[in-house]
């Protein structure tokens, strides 16, 4: 789960990480009032679940409250990577002497959290990683013990030479690790971590991603979810325990299992079509899930054909068949439907479909070809 910068900053503040004050505005007038309160040049930052905000024009300086109002108005009209900006963070502009990067992520390869630090922070950190990898120090952390002081010091010495700054940074790193670990993070990042002309070390940005699997045992973190910042169809899918990602094509796909769902999309493309979505109905399916899946898919006006690809294991194909029949009775389809199902209770499923005037195929490639032909209007 993504959380906003201002939410991540609130968490980091609780752990004692030095972060300049800031307040959230949803209207230009609010932004103006906050800027007036701070009485100094402010930065207006779009709060949206996408990277590259600065490059998209979502982060700007405002020298006066009036300035803040007009800039907030511009930013609140932006759409960044498909997501409309609905909130901005207003924070006093800081004088910056140097910019560093610190971040922590769970690393698949070493099977541990890994800390990363680079003295070359700022917006082009990925380029730094690609072109000058020696400017990034990586240190794995044993989660049973946490980030030890000597490890934090080693990372901090990589960033700074001034002893006061090294100690300050080491403390920030240890607290960042705690914030990451105790809140079920899969990523925590400060970019940039800056030094000011007076020598203080301050976090100017904050990013945190929470492992979705942690939310069940962390209701306070789960409550940070901002549904208005997510794609509405993805929100509906999550509520129905489906995994859904909208794409630009016209073949709607409903599949059980992520791997098979991706392979189905690949086949759609292979046979000359374009998938409209990724949709995984998951393992233990029930008919209601299928009804929800069809509702989400049919609400996309681009969809010209719908393809079910179900390989029953835990998933009972008769449940899926019942779901399809129920959904169509509630809401007759306006586009053609291709059903491929095989596996658990296949005979019952085929009977249910037949009784309701539907038919099923058993071969995946044939089903995909048919769906693509129907979507492109090339079907005989």
């Amino acid at each position, binding site marked *: 789960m993504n959380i906003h910068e201002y939410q991540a900053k609130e968490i980091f503040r609780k752990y004692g990480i030095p972060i300049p004050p800031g307040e959230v505005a949803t209207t230009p007038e609010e932004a103006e009032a906050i800027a007036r309160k701070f009485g100094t040049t402010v930065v207006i930052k779009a709060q949206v679940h*996408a990277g590259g905000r600065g490059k998209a024009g979502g982060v700007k300086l405002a020298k006066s409250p009036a300035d803040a109002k007009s800039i907030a108005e511009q930013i609140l009209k932006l759409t960044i990577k498909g997501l409309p900006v609905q909130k901005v963070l207003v924070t006093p502009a800081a004088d910056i002497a140097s910019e560093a990067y610190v971040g922590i992520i769970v690393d698949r390869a070493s099977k541990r959290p890994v800390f990363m630090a680079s003295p070359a922070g700022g917006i082009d950190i990925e380029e730094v990683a690609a072109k000058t990898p020696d400017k990034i120090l990586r240190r794995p952390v044993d989660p049973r013990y946490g980030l030890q002081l000597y490890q934090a010091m080693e990372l901090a010495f990589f960033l700074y030479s001034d002893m006061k700054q090294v100690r300050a940074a080491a403390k920030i790193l240890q607290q960042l690790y705690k914030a990451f670990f105790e809140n079920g993070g899969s990523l925590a*990042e400060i970019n940039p971590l800056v030094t000011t002309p007076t020598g203080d070390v301050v976090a100017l940005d904050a*990013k945190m991603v929470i492992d979705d699997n942690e939310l*069940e045992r962390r209701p306070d973190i789960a409550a940070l979810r901002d549904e208005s910042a997510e794609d509405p169809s993805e929100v509906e899918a999550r509520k129905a325990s489906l995994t859904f990602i909208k794409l630009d094509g016209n073949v709607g796909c409903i599949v059980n299992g*992520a*791997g098979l769902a991706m*392979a189905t999309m690949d086949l759609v493309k*292979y046979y000359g079509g374009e998938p409209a979505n990724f949709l995984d109905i998951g393992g*233990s399916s029930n008919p209601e899930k299928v009804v929800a899946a069809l509702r989400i898919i049919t609400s996309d006006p681009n969809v010209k054909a719908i393809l079910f690809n179900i390989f029953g294991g835990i998933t009972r194909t008769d449940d899926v068949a019942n779901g399809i029949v129920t959904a169509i009775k509630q809401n007759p389809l306006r586009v053609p439907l291709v059903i491929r199902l095989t596996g658990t209770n296949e005979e019952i499923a085929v009977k249910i479909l037949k009784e309701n005037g539907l038919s099923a195929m058993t071969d*995946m490639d044939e089903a995909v070809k048919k769906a693509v032909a129907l979507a492109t209007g090339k079907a005989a």
Partner: protein
Amino acid sequence: MSIFIDKSTRLIVQGITGRDGSFHTKQMIEYGTQVVGGVTPGKGGQKFEDKVPIFNTVAEAVKATRATATVIYVPPMFAADAMMEAADAGVRFIVCITEGVPVLDMTRVNPFITEKGARLLGPNCPGLISPGQSKVGIIPGRICTPGPVGLVSRSGTLTYEVVYQMTRSKIGQTTCVGIGGDPINGTNFIDCLDAFEKDPTTEAVVMIGEIGGTDEQEAARFVREKMKKPVVGFIAGQTAPPGRRMGHAGAIISGSAGTAAEKMQAFEENGVGVAKRPIDVVDLLKRAMR
């Protein structure tokens, strides 16, 4: 022969009385797996289906049944504890089916299991099956048939699809292993490739990967450097869109976005046959085994 499990495998089921656990225990027994016991805290002394003894703890179950393997069907918040309990009780092969285990839990479980000398498969995996001998987990038995091909996959239903197409084309399997799709899991591709290379009855191997991470690329290098048997592979997610990534750390850490194209290229460069569609696995195998 086979890898990891065979006719002699003595299995216990953690969470045997739960909804998924009980359903799949029946299926495993029906398939011929030796299910020697189950564990559900508070139900010790009872019997599952009037046959399989239930214990309160894994330690008791192991002592009474001489179990060599366990399969875990407990809810995600209890899965880490179940895996550690099994390893501590001396179970050598631990299969965790549970989906939704927090990743940070796995960062603690993994070193613990390694220190105990046990092997973990999963979590969030379909388990494994040695056709005609034993199955541990949820892979449907009837889509498999005994034969000379080993299969290892990160996926669940996509594995079924490929196995089904192999079986339809009369290509049987020694063992089909689903390693699971979680970022941190126990047994990986290389562990399975190594075991298949050493298994005298396996003649060729199928490897099914997905986008994300670099495991498939490393596995491909292992094939070139350490294996004599032919390996063919498929990668799901060739059309997956680049995600709305938040942080930078993922790309920095691996130096790779883990795209399907990257992985297929690694297959090609290291002599792993690349299937463009799942069905192409069949033809590649036929050619490789000629």
